[in-house]
């Protein structure tokens, strides 16, 4: 096993008005050689003068990175000849960097780490040389702009961590307003030092990698380089100490120069600049520049506003977004709702219009207004989205739009009651049907009421008022295939069918509350193994509509046993925030004429749960009310046979069969929580089907087994799979020992292509990569531990996450999409 050590040298360009040692504008994008003067052009006789703003910013960063601050800011000359360096020495800091012994805290794939900062120093940038044909062109606009170099200790292990560090540092300097953090444009640059050695043997030979102008390249180059060095060591070779360049076109590092030809920079104290002493007044100014940094703000958002870590990360990525979020809350909006809307529908509008949040017509006040109108029931969800779109199109206040469009809902129960009474009077037949126990006409009546109010009646109030008027409440029952809805043919084979009529079944069930009516819906006739993405889309759309309307007291879904764990967890990821119980159930034996089936008992129990108060997703089977996540259908060897056969499963006296499900890692599971795809569930059915089909096609479940070949996984990736759920052993181990059966090459291949591995356990282990060297190695390879989640639950979350990312419009580039998916996969 090998160990890798990675340290970064990060240069950030400080956003000062003028250059660090002269009064030229620090604006290097201008017409070449326009922001220059004798000083920054290195004319004979000129002297540097220190820009105090640059020092102040530099100390601010050092302070933010928890460094010991040097009481004196002292400069040295770093000597090297290069045409773009006007003086052929760079004024820098060598002997006495302004900051030392700092740190930055990171988290990558659940592993928290403190990365030590070795030092921070201030220096001047060089100009830019471009070779054009047989000419070399020089632009000195950048020469002399202030550059802050941050050097970390070799505390990082893998490329992904380096990427996370750069992203966090980028956020930090943007928060502090000292740098725009743009790596593509070079205002933030990074060199990396890598050494790989046998575990426990300490640092190996250091290789420096240059030309890393995006955090993605840093990750890729480091992954490549660690892999390259590891292979050399495996072959018994030695690593040459050298400088290598990242070739972004070929995705590899290439040797640039070896140590022998390394520069001797001949540092010595800069005689033209006296020591700058940091006065109390100066340090006070530095303190006043500090703002709440991203990490602290994320923690506060989670603690104070109750948002999830993933939401906090999204909200705090840009200071402006975090400020916006808090402004909306100050304007009276509810935190969780703001977070959901910002990450979903608002983001979708921003993507569509190509504007930044802070430049958009949607001010925090307008968003708060929209959400409060929604919360007050003035408008319902669908209208709210239309209003949002119009705010972007017309730049008006939500209230104005609602008035103009005549979208204000009728929420006054008395007003609605009048309409309800009229409709009931007009439809005596439907009323009679309902009162005789058939809930079906409820939908028809709602439709009539909506029609009578031009769609302006608030659906929930309509539902309430109507329920009161007819003294019933509705439970929706969806038939979603499986044995529970099937029946046995003459030849003994079970074929798909419809659920039995519950109306007749529970006509006079003493255990049900009074006035329950059923609205039964046929969503699919199939056996559970035949479920398609379109079926799931139908189920989700229907559930979303029902919940949005608030039209039922609970929902029951009849399902087959085989894939129940998929559908139940999928419903959890889409609807964990449901206000009413959603109950899935199944049966072992189909209903048959004359034979008592567990279908009846399970349905009865489900209906009771659905009529109850325990909101969330339930799986009712036998006597048990299981959690929707981590469901395992565990009993094997069961064949459906007529009950009178000797092999038939034995039902107890009340007709329940022994529980055949179990929740893995049940501790800490919940029935209700946050939905992963609150935006995704509102998609049109066709779009949702499409999104699910794509998501499922991109995702693949693999179970590790002895002798599994990495090549197989590579072939699957090459077939277009982007995300794996990899079921491994125990708390997360797999074979990484160099052999045809090692997965390492597959992981390397995956990292090159941005393919992700989400790891679950075959053995009810909580995957956290904590215990074994091989498990840590998996973490190093970039695998993502899914904790307590089972394969099925992890996989459905992956589908939900992709649907959500698609719905929010994050499809423009692969990397952004994957980032979004990743954040939705984390708690």
């Amino acid at each position, binding site marked *: 096993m090998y160990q890798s050590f990675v340290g970064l040298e990060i240069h950030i360009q400080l956003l000062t008005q003028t250059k660090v040692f002269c009064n030229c504008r620090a604006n290097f994008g201008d017409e070449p050689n326009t922001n220059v003067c*004798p000083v920054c052009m290195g004319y*004979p*006789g*000129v002297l540097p003068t220190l820009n105090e703003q640059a020092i102040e910013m530099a100390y601010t960063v050092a302070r933010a990175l928890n460094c010991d601050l040097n009481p004196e800011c002292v400069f040295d000359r770093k000597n090297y000849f290069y045409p773009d360096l006007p*003086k052929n*020495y760079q004024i820098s800091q060598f002997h006495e960097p302004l900051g030392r012994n700092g740190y930055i805290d990171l988290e990558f794939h659940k592993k928290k780490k403190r990365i030590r900062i070795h030092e921070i120093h201030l220096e001047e940038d060089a100009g830019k040389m471009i070779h054009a044909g047989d000419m070399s062109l020089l632009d000195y606009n950048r020469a002399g702009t202030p550059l802050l170099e941050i050097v970390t200790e070799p505390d990082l292990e893998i490329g992904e961590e380096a990427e996370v560090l750069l992203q966090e540092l980028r956020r930090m300097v943007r928060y502090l307003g000292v740098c725009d953090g743009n790596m593509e444009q070079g205002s933030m640059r990074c060199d990396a030092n890598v050494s790989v050695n046998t575990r426990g043997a300490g640092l190996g030979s250091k290789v420096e990698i240059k030309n890393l102008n995006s955090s993605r390249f840093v990750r890729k180059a480091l992954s490549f380089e660690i892999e390259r060095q590891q292979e050399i060591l495996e072959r018994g070779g030695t690593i040459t100490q050298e400088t290598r360049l990242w070739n972004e076109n070929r995705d590899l590092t290439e040797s640039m120069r070896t140590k022998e030809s390394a520069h*001797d920079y001949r540092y*010595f104290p800069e005689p*033209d600049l*006296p020591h700058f002493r940091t006065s109390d007044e100066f340090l006070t100014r530095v303190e006043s520049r500090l703002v709440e940094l991203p990490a602290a703000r994320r923690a506060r958002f989670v603690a104070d506003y109750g948002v999830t870590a993933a939401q906090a990360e999204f909200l705090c990525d840009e200071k402006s977004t975090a400020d916006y979020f808090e402004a909306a809350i100050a304007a009276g909006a509810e935190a969780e709702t703001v977070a959901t809307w910002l990450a979903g529908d608002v983001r979708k509008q921003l993507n569509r219009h190509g504007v930044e949040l802070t430049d958009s017509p949607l001010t925090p006040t307008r968003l708060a207004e929209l959400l409060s109108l929604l919360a007050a029931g003035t408008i319902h969800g669908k209208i709210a989205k239309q209003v949002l779109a119009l705010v972007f199109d017309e730049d008006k206040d939500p209230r104005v739009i609602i008035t103009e469009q005549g979208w204000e809902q009728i929420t006054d129960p008395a007003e609605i009651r009048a309409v309800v009474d009229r409709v009931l009077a007009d439809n005596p037949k439907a009323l009679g049907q309902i009162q005789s126990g058939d809930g079906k006409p409820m939908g028809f009546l709602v439709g009539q009421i909506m029609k009578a109010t031009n769609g302006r009646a608030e659906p929930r109030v309509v539902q309430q008022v109507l329920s009161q008027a007819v003294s019933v409440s509705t439970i929706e029952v969806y038939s979603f295939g499986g044995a529970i809805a099937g029946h046995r043919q003459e030849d003994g084979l079970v074929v798909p069918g419809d659920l039995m009529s519950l109306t007749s079944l529970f006509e006079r069930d003493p255990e049900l509350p009074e006035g329950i009516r059923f609205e039964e819906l046929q969503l699919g006739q199939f056996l559970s193994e035949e479920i398609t993405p379109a079926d799931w889309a139908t189920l989700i759309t229907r559930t979303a509509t029902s919940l949005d309307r608030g039209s039922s007291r609970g929902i029951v879904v009849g399902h087959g046993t085989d894939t129940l764990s998929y559908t139940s967890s999928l419903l959890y990821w889409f609807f964990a925030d449901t206000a009413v119980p959603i109950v899935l159930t199944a049966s072992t034996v189909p209903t048959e004429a004359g034979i008592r089936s567990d279908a009846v008992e399970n349905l009865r129990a489900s209906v009771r749960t659905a009529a109850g108060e325990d909101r969330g997703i339930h799986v009712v089977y036998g006597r048990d009310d299981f959690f929707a996540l981590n469901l395992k259908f565990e009993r094997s060897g069961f064949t459906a046979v007529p009950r009178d056969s000797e092999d038939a499963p034995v039902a107890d006296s009340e007709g329940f069969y022994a529980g055949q499900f179990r929740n893995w890692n049940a501790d800490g599971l919940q029935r209700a929580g946050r939905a992963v795809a609150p935006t995704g569930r509102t998609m049109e059915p066709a779009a949702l089907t499409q999104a699910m089909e794509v998501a499922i096609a991109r995702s693949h479940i693999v179970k590790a087994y002895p002798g599994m070949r990495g090549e197989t996984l590579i072939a699957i990736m090459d077939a277009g799979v982007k995300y794996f759920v990899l079921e491994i052993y125990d708390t997360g181990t797999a074979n990484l020992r160099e052999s045809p059966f090692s997965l390492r090459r597959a992981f390397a291949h995956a990292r090159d292509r941005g393919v992700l591995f989400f790891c679950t356990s075959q053995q009810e282990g909580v995957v956290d990569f904590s215990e074994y060297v091989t498990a840590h190695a998996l973490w190093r390879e970039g695998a993502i531990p899914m904790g307590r989640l089972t394969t099925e639950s992890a996989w459905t979350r992956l589908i939900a996450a992709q649907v959500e990312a698609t719905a929010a419009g994050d499809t423009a580039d692969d990397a952004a999409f994957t980032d979004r998916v990743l954040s939705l996969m984390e708690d």
Partner: protein
Amino acid sequence: MWDRILSDARDEYARFLREQDAPTASFLEIGAPPQWSAPVSAEHDDALSASRPSVTFPIAVKDNIAVKGYHLSCGSRMLQDLVSPYDAAAVTRLRHAGAQFVGKTNMDEFGMGSSTDTSALGRTSNPWDTERVAGGSSGGSAAAVAQQLVPVALGSDTGGSIRQPAAFCGVYGLKPTYGTVSRYGLVAYASSLEVVGVLGSDIDHVADTYRAMRGEDAQDHTSVAVPGEALQPAAADAVKTIGVLQGDLGLDESVARNYAATAEALRDLGYNVVPIDLSTLEYVVPAYYTIAAAEASANLARFNGVRYGHRPVFSENPEELMRQARSEAFGDEVKLRIVLGTYVLRSGFQDQYYTRAQKIRTLIRRELDARFGEVDLILSPTFPVQAFRHGDQAMDAFQQKVADRFTGTANLAAIPALTVPSGLEGGLPVGMQLMGPAFSEEKLFAVAGRLATVQPVVFPDGSRSFDEWRTANGAGGGA
């Protein structure tokens, strides 16, 4: 007198300069009168400006100090064609005080030499004997003053570059306290050692020129304000005790004789003259050359032919261009010091050379601090010999360096030092050096003023003042 000439007789004066400079060739460039003065922006200097003297005379400037519109060659092929786009801070201050800048004087290439013979752009000779050198590196400025072409010339002093040529040519040469005159516009050779200073034939002119230049400058962060009490001319009794450096100083007989006579003259003037020694003296030259070469190796790195300066006819690529430019355009002495400086700064060797030199520098400074607790000023020779002949036979480059120990002391200690002309020996001038603690320039002027009453400045026979020249040419009339 000079203000009349500068307003009414500029063309004639220009002619005088061209004609009279011929035997010594102290100028690299004599400006046409319109070039002499330039409009200066409204007074933006500090409150000191009110008390600044007017300096309404013509000034020649060493060619390593920037004067807008003039060349800034530093005596090097490298910068032969460079015209300065700006004024040095000292020049700006003098313009405010009424000075006019008539031309640029020759010098050792980038200030590296003691003879002005390392100049790549011309040979300057000593007005007392044109077979001999004017000293260096500010040899052109010293010769121009001795030749009576200008009353005052600016020079720069890194290790004696003002004082040694002043001694060779028999004029005053002031190396001020480090930082009292802004270095902005002085082409850097050894930044931590050098200063802009004044050469002149009249101590009052020298003093006024210095007073007009001194003071903190925002463009040079190493510049310092002269403390208030040191701004005023020194009282008659400000200097009581003068230490005279003793021991085997390795002086030529003539210089030794003159040195003794000068000490005696000071005693006669009523000063308490006491013998002192400096134990650090023998370390001055190695420490000085180590630091100067190290800084020079970085300071001269900017000359690479890319943005300005000498550029080869053809180069394959920018790197090659830099290599060729430097190879072609630097002289041997400059290359020697760059290589030496690069050597002492190598990683792994710094402790042995550069850092050790800095430690020695600290010791020298401490010893001088201690001496100035005992005496007000120190008298020493400026240079162990009088002006030597052109060419290597008289004194080779190494001997010249070793001879810098009296002058180098003041640069390492950052203190002011003034060469005063102390008469002739064998028909050639000799100059002695007075050193004082930081900011003691006014005391130096005071003592020099009194010494002038017994050892007045004399000019070489071949020289003519402008008035004499005008009378001789029968053109004097109107002025």
